[in-house]
């Protein structure tokens, strides 16, 4: 079992690295928790603490308007020991969540669906990484480590999404829908992944089983499962909070209407600060419509590779979500190595990676100049978030380009290798 030993090695080293970081730099988790790049109003661990405090004292956690996360997190975190006197168990809990996410990635990678699915078969099959390498890219990504140390609650959404995908490619479509329901319940936006995910399940179903089923029926059936899982979770939440509409408006209303304009790495906050109030509703509608429109377009154009649609959508979310953080980018970066066979076709990796590196250094520097040194202003930081989004967009566009190129080569075996140039 050489492979397993490698996996245990990678997972063990990732765990020890995180443990070392919190032991050597005990102030690091709190520092990261306070960074706007990592913690947004919807995933901040500090805000979770506030909600938890109110919850354990039998006050509605949404009183005070600080806490905006799903109520089911509260009983979970109230089981963990007090964070101030004993921070290590919580940290280890987060480490384990990271490892579990990495395990889901291993499953996705080893299913081979990213290379060969029902309608698609990549041209460069020999260029690929095995599951452990993909997991290593995820576990040793500095963005993932920062998210994990900052104890951001996005990791649970990440778990939901990764498990939905890993179950879908494994053929377990019911579990996939349940996991997606969990992710959507936590953060709302994963619900947009339903269509590509159900296509992954459907393709997989046709590929491996002899029973053929009608597409419409299949989709409706799975939509019902998803809806049932969300309703179940909402019902549980109702049992916990007691006031249904209060929690709906404090969580999903907060996601949809974007009332908190704390700076983050996304594009919404600055735009809505500048906006006149009378146009606000209209532009919120436009922004959400823009975000949702990618689902239809990408799914239709890349019908043959629904798993790639999911990966690209995760990249789109990391750029255009209302409250994005580096954890969303880390999820996108986790999915990219599954498409190792596309890397030779990508043209602007160096520039995209440089832009992302530049912005991840300059972002904190400009934020410092704005907030602490007082010698800069909000435009400094916003300019860098634009560069960050630009870097991610280049990467995204480039990867979609190479996926399309790959499809084209598959259709035209004669023309392989034409016009492929690395810059």
């Amino acid at each position, binding site marked *: 079992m050489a492979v397993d030993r490698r996996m245990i090695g990678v997972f063990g080293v990732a765990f020890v690295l995180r443990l070392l970081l919190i032991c050597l730099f005990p102030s690091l988790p709190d520092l990261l928790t306070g960074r706007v790049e990592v913690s947004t109003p919807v995933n901040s661990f500090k805000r979770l603490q506030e909600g938890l405090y109110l919850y354990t004292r039998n006050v509605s956690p949404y009183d005070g308007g600080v806490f905006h996360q799903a109520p089911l997190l509260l009983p979970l975190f109230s089981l963990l020991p007090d964070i101030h006197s004993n921070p290590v168990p919580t940290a280890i809990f987060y480490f384990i969540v990271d490892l579990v996410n990495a395990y889901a990635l291993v499953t996705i990678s080893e299913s081979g669906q990213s290379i060969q699915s029902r309608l698609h078969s990549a041209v460069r099959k020999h260029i690929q990484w095995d599951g452990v390498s993909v997991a290593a890219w995820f576990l040793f990504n500095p963005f993932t480590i920062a998210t994990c140390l900052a104890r951001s609650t996005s990791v649970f959404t990440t778990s939901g999404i990764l498990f939905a995908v890993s179950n879908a490619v494994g053929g377990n479509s019911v579990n996939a829908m349940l996991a997606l329901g969990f992710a959507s319940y936590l953060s709302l936006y994963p619900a947009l992944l339903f269509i590509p995910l159900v296509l992954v399940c459907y393709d997989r179903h046709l590929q491996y089983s002899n029973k053929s089923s009608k597409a419409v029926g299949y989709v409706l059936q799975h939509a019902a499962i998803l809806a049932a899982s969300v309703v179940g979770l909402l019902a549980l939440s109702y049992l916990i909070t007691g006031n249904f509409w209060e929690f709906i408006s404090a969580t999903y209303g907060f996601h949809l209407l974007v009332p908190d304009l704390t700076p983050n790495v996304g594009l919404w906050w600055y735009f809505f600060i500048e906006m006149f109030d009378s146009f606000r509703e209209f532009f919120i509608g436009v922004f959400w419509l823009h975000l949702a429109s990618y689902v239809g377009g990408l799914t239709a154009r890349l019908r043959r590779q629904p798993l790639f649609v999911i990966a690209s959508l995760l990249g789109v979310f990391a750029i255009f979500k209302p409250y994005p953080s580096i954890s969303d980018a880390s999820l996108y970066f986790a999915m990219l190595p599954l498409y190792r066979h596309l890397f*030779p076709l990508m043209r602007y990796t160096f520039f995209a990676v*440089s832009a992302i590196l530049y912005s991840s*250094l300059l972002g904190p520097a400009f934020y410092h100049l704005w907030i*602490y040194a*007082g*010698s800069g202003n909000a435009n400094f930081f916003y300019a860098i978030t634009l560069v960050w989004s630009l870097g991610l967009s280049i990467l995204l566009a480039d990867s979609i380009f190479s996926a399309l190129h790959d499809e084209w080569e598959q259709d035209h075996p004669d023309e392989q290798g*034409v016009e*492929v140039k690395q810059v």
Partner: protein
Amino acid sequence: MTAAIRNLRENPRFLFTRLPNILSFLCIVVGVAWLLLLPLDDNSRRTYISENALLPGQVHAYFTGSEQNIFRGYKQELQALLNEGRETENQETEVEVTPAASNKVHSILQAAGLKVATQKYEYTSAGITHQGENIYGIIHAPRGDATEAIVLVAAWKTADDELNLKGVTLALTLARYFKRWSLWSKDIIFLFTPDSKTGTQAWVDAYHDLHPESVQPLPLKSGALQGAVVIEYPFEHHFQKLHIVYDGVNGQLPNLDLFNTAVAIAGGQMGIGANLQEMWEHNDSYEARLQTMMRGMTKQGLGYATGAHSSFMPYHIDAITLQPKGEGWEDEMALGRTIESMCRSLNNLLEHLHQSFFFYLLMHSNRFVSIGTYLPSAMLIAGNFTIMAIALWMRTGYYPESKPDTPTGEKSKSEKPTKTGAKKIEKETKMNETALPERLMALPLTLVTGLHLLGLVPLWTFNNIFHQYFTTATYIFVVVDIVLPLFLAALLSNGLGVSKPIIPQQYLLIKSFALLLLGLALSTLATLNFSLSFMIGLLCAPLSFIGRLQGPAALRYGVSSLGLVLLNLLSPPMVLLGVCWYTGVSVESVLTQAAFGWDVWGMWTQVVVWCVWWPAWLIGCVQLGSSIF
């Protein structure tokens, strides 16, 4: 002309090897020239007061006459107490503040009607313990609501470690004098610290509740601090000019309005000239301006605290030190009036100083350049590394592709008669090309990341060992810097059984990544600390142009050995030794100061040296060293 350009465009050797070198070199030359052009009249601007509320020198200063008698009285009392302490301990050279004297300060402030409190603190750095006790008193503003405050600081020891008796006495006299005025709309805090290095830091940290455990919290606080002025007067005779010190920790500067106010009041209202950057004779010529600017840049680049005012800067509190210098006919009353007038100006402020510049280089007391004018020079130097990195990346993508091209061409030429055969071969080569030549990035990425992380070792060492070992540690690092690159180069070239021998493409990739990171770090740094970025950029400039040499063995050995020797002269520890030798300061004291800065002031010059400069330098040496093996 167009033909020549087309020729050049189609010449890969020019495009990927020559052009980037020329561009990089141009960037460096233009960057340096840009800096040298700054002192010209066309590029620099006259200073001006942006914040209208300041109204410097528009009020009459009343601090005269009878206040001088009180000054003399306080001075006599303090002098007596200091002498007493010195006689009992038999210490002639070391200036140490006696508890009796600080008790006296306490009682004088209390007698003047101020609320007084004390704060004890202790710092340990490089095995040396610094401890002391701050005394401070607060005048509550008769017209304010205690939401804003101005700080006047008098340290018992000046930034040059002289006894600041007259400065402390002046602050006491001013405290008594200010207390009687009814026009203050901001609280005034008088802070007396034992020295200029630690006291204000402990106090201002505790004021914002960010103090370490060894520092006591403050029992008494006021509102948000708007500005701070440090008073020094470390001699008995009258003075001629005021020297204004404004550099903060990590190269942060106070708002230019504060500096301008001081210059305007000293020069315009009081008729005392103002100096800066220890330029006692400044004739406003190009050379003098350039020298002033260079001195400012050196201080900014090294990032150490230049006086008691420096500790305020990280908290966004603008602060300066006023030092009387020279022999003349201005007495302590003139300094007192200057400070009174400054306090009146600060008292006028309606909001925090924000109008004027925070990033500037001063070249005369009334001439400066702002960030928009000077930033391109550091950015060009940082940009040269990025250009080189991109060029190297493109080159690694280009060469492997062009290699299979030539044999294909020959083949098709020889088999031209049979057209079908040629087509077949063409198809085959195309199929092969689908397996695109990919860059082997695992080793370069690991090496570059690893070496940058290795920088943490010297960083930790130089900040944590005891001060008596600093000199030895520096020499050890000189040796390490000679041996380590050669060892790494040998390891990479031959593998030594550990790994596969490295191919030329990977050398280029290593250099590309290293330069990319260097450019990245330096351009970020340029926005925070321009001077440091500029200095490191210049010291690293050769790294753009060195690489693995090719050619006959004898030539390679000779050139690369010579290059390594030259490069070693530019290594961080060698530069440190060289600068210490040139300025006559001991290595130990510099490093003790640096470790102190790291532990107490939060200075991060070392991080830049060990985690940006050193790894980049090391990789340059490895490149050059690899041509030997």
